[in-house]
């Protein structure tokens, strides 16, 4: 096991190198020169050159790339070019609000996705099953923007059930007051594809021999579904959930923009709009690292869930 983990960690290095190179090339190719924005509208060539010097963008590319690598190794990405705020502070302060929305959303999405998938699997092939699948397809065809605009208008503005937007100082206030509607919207958007996916995982299992054997032994349908089928369907479900976890780092930028949530997703968009390379590269590197680590954790979880899985 230990050797397996070490080998997987070692394999992350070339992947990370590829990410670093890609981010660096993309930024220098399409990212624009921030010096022209930072210099203000009356700037002359000398002033623009001076700003490039301050930012280090006047250095040869290989020097800039080396600085980037050193920043990754030291976990110090310096300060944002547009605001002067330390990148570490940006990430640490914006991550909390994003997770306040996204962790409950992930938990609810997974719970309802599994419960509904099992329930639908009970009545597979029936009118209810077909009706739910049609509803899911329709739900998936609607843009998240529509959900946000409609829900915000009716539930927040018209009915006054939630604040139109905002963010407070305390965790409980944020979770129970400001994050509730964004979570509900996120759930409405994600439940349809999740349900369809999990239903297919469950249906893959219900026709297996072990299910027939369980029935032959006289086990009840509930026990078969919740214990035998669910355990075997858990592996693809875990893969799906774990693969989505790194996305928590990016936040749900549309929800954050519409509901005034000071999260990391909004910060990413802002950084791109401002050509703020230190912020973009830090977040990209962290997300890439998180993706690789969560992939490793997924593999480790497989073994915990199903002892037949061997890690080699």
């Amino acid at each position, binding site marked *: 096991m230990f050797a397996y983990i070490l080998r997987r960690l070692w394999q992350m290095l070339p992947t990370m190198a590829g990410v670093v190179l890609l981010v660096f090339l993309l930024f220098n190719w399409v990212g*624009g*020169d*921030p*010096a*022209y*924005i*930072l*210099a*203000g*509208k*009356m*700037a*002359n*060539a000398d*002033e*623009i050159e*001076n*700003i490039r010097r*301050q930012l280090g963008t006047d250095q040869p590319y290989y020097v800039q790339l080396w600085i980037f690598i050193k920043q990754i190794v030291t976990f110090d990405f310096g*300060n944002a070019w*547009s*605001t*002067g*705020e330390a990148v570490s502070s*940006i990430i640490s*302060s914006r991550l909390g609000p994003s997770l306040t929305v996204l962790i409950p959303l992930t938990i609810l999405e997974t719970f309802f996705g599994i419960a509904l998938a099992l329930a639908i699997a009970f009545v597979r092939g029936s009118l209810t099953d077909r009706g739910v699948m049609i509803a899911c397809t329709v739900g998936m065809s609607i843009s998240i923007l529509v959900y946000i*605009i409609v829900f*915000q*208008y009716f539930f*927040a*503005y018209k009915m*006054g059930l939630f*604040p*139109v*937007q*905002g*963010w407070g100082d305390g965790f409980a206030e944020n979770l129970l007051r400001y994050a509730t509607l964004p979570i509900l919207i996120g759930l409405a958007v994600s439940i349809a594809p999740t349900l369809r996916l999990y239903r297919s995982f469950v249906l893959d299992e219900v026709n297996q021999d072990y299910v027939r054997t369980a029935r032959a032994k006289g086990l009840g349908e509930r026990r078969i579904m919740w214990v035998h089928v669910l355990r075997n369907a858990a592996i693809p479900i875990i893969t799906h959930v774990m693969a989505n976890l790194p996305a928590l780092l990016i936040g749900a930028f549309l929800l954050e*923009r*519409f*509901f*005034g*949530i*000071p999260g990391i997703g*909004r*910060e990413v968009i*802002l950084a791109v709009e401002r*050509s703020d390379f230190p912020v973009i590269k830090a977040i990209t590197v962290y997300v890439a690292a998180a993706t690789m680590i969560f992939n490793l954790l997924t593999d480790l979880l497989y073994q915990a869930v199903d002892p037949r899985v061997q890690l080699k």
Partner: protein
Amino acid sequence: MRYRYAMNFPRCTQLAIAGLVGVLAILPAGAAGPLKTLRYIFPAAETGFDPAVARDLYTGHVTQAIFETLYSYDYLARPVLLVPHAASGLPEVSNDGKTYTIRLKKGQYFTPDPAFKGKRRELTMADYVYSWKRLFDPKLASPHSWLFEGKVVGLDQLAADAKKTGKFDYDKAVAGLELVDPYTLRIHLTQTDFNLGMILAHEPTVALAREVVEKYGDINGAVHGNPVGTGHYKLGQWVRGNRIVLEKNTEHHAEVWDFKGNGTPDDQRIIAQMKGKTIPQIDRIDIRVMVEDQSRWLSFQSGGVDLFWLDGPLAPKAILNGKLRPELAAKGVQLSRQIDPEITYYYWNMQDPVVGGFSKEKIALRRAIAMAHNVDEEISIVWNGQAQRVDYPIPPGVVGHDPAYRSILQYDPALANKLLDRFGYKKGKDGWRTLPDGKPLVISYTSRNEASGVLMAEVWRKTYNALGIRMENKRMIFSDLLQAEKLCKVQSRNYQWMADYPDGDNFMQLHYGPNVNQNNAACFADPEVDKLYAQSQKMPAGPERDVLYHRIARRIEVTGAARMAYSRFRNMLAQPAVLGYTKHPILHQEWAYIDIDPSK
């Protein structure tokens, strides 16, 4: 500013006030009444609160409230009127416009901060001198150094020395910034400049305390997160990119609201609501950043916001034919609507081989395109009608504007086509025109990579199609566009300019040859215009200077280098509880001069 100081009251009145304050101080806190809070929205995130490096409009709102310039503008007077702010009076200007003597009010204090080690820190002229030097520090790379660049004797040399030595010497005296005493500064200019007073009303020229910069400055010496000033408000809470709370600065010297206005019904209403009140009335400004139109609009409608900038796409929701919609008016919502001190004009790159140059056929090409474009249609489609067509390079509300001026480039597509026919831009069998030498004629129109940029391009495509000229649209991110423009690589586009100071000079310099590669976006270098502009710089505002400006405006049209297009409206909505509000053309915000009725 037209106000009276409490310190000018008779002594018995001062004693009475002091006694009253003493009595109030020992009353329980609950007896003071609720805090007055104004809820405000920024449609984009702020950056940081160092006025020397901040360059965005929304940060400017905050720095203008926390720090003080030497001069400001009368809240009600129109056209705008320069008034003393931290200064005790208007500047004494020598006849040649080269020497300014400025006196500071005594007894103005920075808000308490650990940087002052427990002592009250009085504002002096040395703070202004220090802050203006900062604009030249190469490490800080301020985007505002142009405010003093080449103007103050010895100041540029300080920056040049720093580039050589690698260290900016803040202690070195600058000959042009003569500190007569702690409250008097004499500025010696390198050349005549009658606009310096307005420059000193621009928020990058505010005073910072050196101790604060030295305590909190980052590696480049910028103080983004610890703004300590002498203004009406101080920073209370800041959640970056989301919420800014400003608290009333109780250290600020007492002022009484006593603006006169121009006698309009709006002015009379405002005066009736505000006259005699102390400044500021509002205890707290609670600013939220809301980037999405729907969120802002629903927040205002649900009463979550008191003052609201109704920009672009939202305007039709509240405005009908330039007036507030009846359903909003019935609720008591107030609209303050005015033309912003800005201009949009269309330019064609004068250095470009296809559209540039001063030959007759090139001039004809540019003038034809200018005449074929329907500005009103663009205003309607792109800006929802929220702009006013302008003919003169200086927009309304800015000193030097001439409402009677009429451009020779008026919308006339038939005439435009005839002009092209006459100068040899023939139409081929495919319906597209070629250059006089028979080569294909394709003109590139550049716009920003966003919704309004796409709309503008489509309106322009219609114009070019009507002329039989092929147009291609280049869409760029803003930084790329700025870079291409400064390098004179943009063939044509809509160029917007917002006043830094409300004088025609700030707009006429856009067409001055030496400003090519800076902000002369058309890369227009015309000896006649340059000569006229150089002459105008030596004159104070007035009819003599206006004559020169008229000649420049006409020359721009005759050469077809640019066509003036429109200035946009600023629509501000206020809830019924807001008292005394009107949008000022230059001030970013008016928080200190308004009130709010918590009972409404």
